């Protein structure tokens, strides 16, 4: 730990403020059509917590700490892997009209609408 920069007081608040602002701006530009993959994607991003779990587990010195640390890494890894799997699956499905149109076959004549009672 000695070699790492210390993030205390206002420095932490600056990091939080700038990060929150970035998140707000980045997400604010996403069209509603992508809200589900986006939420799932941001869900994946907070899976970085697994790194914190690994730190805590590696640093564990008692059985209790090891057990909780194991739990932390287990859950964090689930968050990461699951988040990635579902997000990439969803995003792969979005396509434009250019990618299909192979199925258009039936009736080409344009007929005027039937009047119905």
């Amino acid at each position, binding site marked *: 730990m000695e070699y790492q920069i210390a993030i205390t007081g206002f420095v932490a608040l600056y990091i939080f403020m700038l990060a929150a602002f970035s998140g707000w701006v980045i997400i604010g530009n996403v069209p509603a059509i*992508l809200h589900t993959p986006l939420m*799932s994607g941001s869900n994946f*991003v907070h899976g970085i917590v697994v790194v914190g779990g690994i730190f805590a587990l590696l*640093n564990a010195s008692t059985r209790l700490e090891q057990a909780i640390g194991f739990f932390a890494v287990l859950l964090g890894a689930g*968050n990461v892997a699951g988040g990635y799997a579902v997000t990439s699956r969803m995003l792969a499905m979005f396509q434009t009209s250019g990618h299909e149109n192979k199925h258009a076959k039936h009736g080409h004549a344009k007929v005027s609408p039937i009047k119905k009672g």
Partner: protein
Amino acid sequence: MLIQISQLTIGATDLIAAFLFMYGLKRMSSPVTAPSGIYVAGIGMLVAVLASFLYILSVDAAAKPQLPINIGLAVIALIIGGGLAWWVGKKVAMTAMPQMVAIYNGMGGGAAGAIAAVELFGDKTHGLTQLVVTLLGALIGAVSFSGSLIAWAKLDGVLKNPLRFRGQQIFNGLVMLLTLAVGGYILFITKSGATPLLPMPQLTELFFACALVCGILMTLPIGGADMPVVISIYNAFTGLAVGLEGFVLQNPALMIAGMVVGAAGLLLTLLMAKAMNRSISNVLFTNFGTPKKHKQGAIKGSLKPVDAADAGIFMRYASSVIIVPGYGLAAAQGQQKLYEFVKLIKSAGVSVKFAIHPVAGRMPGQMDVLLAEAGVPYDMIFQLEDINDEFANTDVALVIGANDVVNPAARTDKSSPIYGMPILNADKAKKVYVVKRGEGKGYAGIVNALFYAENCDMVYGDAQAVLAKMIEAVRGLGSAKAA
């Protein structure tokens, strides 16, 4: 020297990871670049996780003897947790996405809470600020964990009905206060050095137990229609908890990623709440969906049932059709059939568009994903504000499995619970067809005046069966002409 290099490497990879996360999320803002966005973020994650093992070189002296076991445990946890979640995530159905997001989100919250627990039980926090932040992160993470699990159970149908009882809000409030009091007491004891009423580990256990119960109690009374808001809130909560624990661990990557997600989740929550015309506290603290005694203005007109085949043929000869799909369509697994029908009438020269209400589905944007899964290209899908003016110039609006989001009462009836909610103006189309299973009410429990309108016909039946009949009828036309 080796230790310094490893710490530098961890610092550098975390910096890279933080950048890749933000860049990845940025790329997700367009359907064209979105798939590469998650890939970019994925690389960031991989690098950060691999680099975190360099921490082996700089663990505390007390942990050194345990290191081989700890490394083994970490690898096993990564393989089991990651493997299981990956396997489930790959095979689960698209309609089940909301509950998957809920459960993965809960895992993240649980991990943040567990990190806080290691710090607290191991007495590793230094100074008052760190202790406060650890406790706060523990509380939010634990609430997100248990709350997300309840949300998962509700979405998955394990828990069927919202649990509500008299005085619930007061009870929930008291549990919340108790949690905060225990947290405050832990702080007081640590600061003053006085002898606690309970030994410290037990106090910490009590704190976590209360926080977990809070999450459960908060989520139990919330109804199905409010799930989009709830998932967004817990997503924001987990982000916040991760950010706070990042501060405790002095890891800027966690701080940044957590806070970015926290802000993003908050924004989505506000968007969803706005789309339902309700405040967040309204969603969390009032019981929506309980049938209120509300004076319904007398509705003129009658329900006019028509045959699916007639409706299908009418749309085949219309020049423009806007389809308003709702969760009922997904519940009936009718998206594929719907797109088949759309392709059929589109090839006959009908202009077809999809109009999506922001809260269609069980999480923000779920309907868009379900349509995309059925193969509907995204340039045919339009959001409320982009298409609402077009209904007036459209021949047919086909409302399928949706109800409250097309209820004109939201515009006109001040006494209606959904008054002021933005709705799709399906009623303004020249002709409206509503595909519905029966004469039931929507989630809000309100009769929909649209169904009784002059220009509206009802097609009763399961969405998939109705669409099959429509397809058959339109195909029948084609073959009759050829014969």
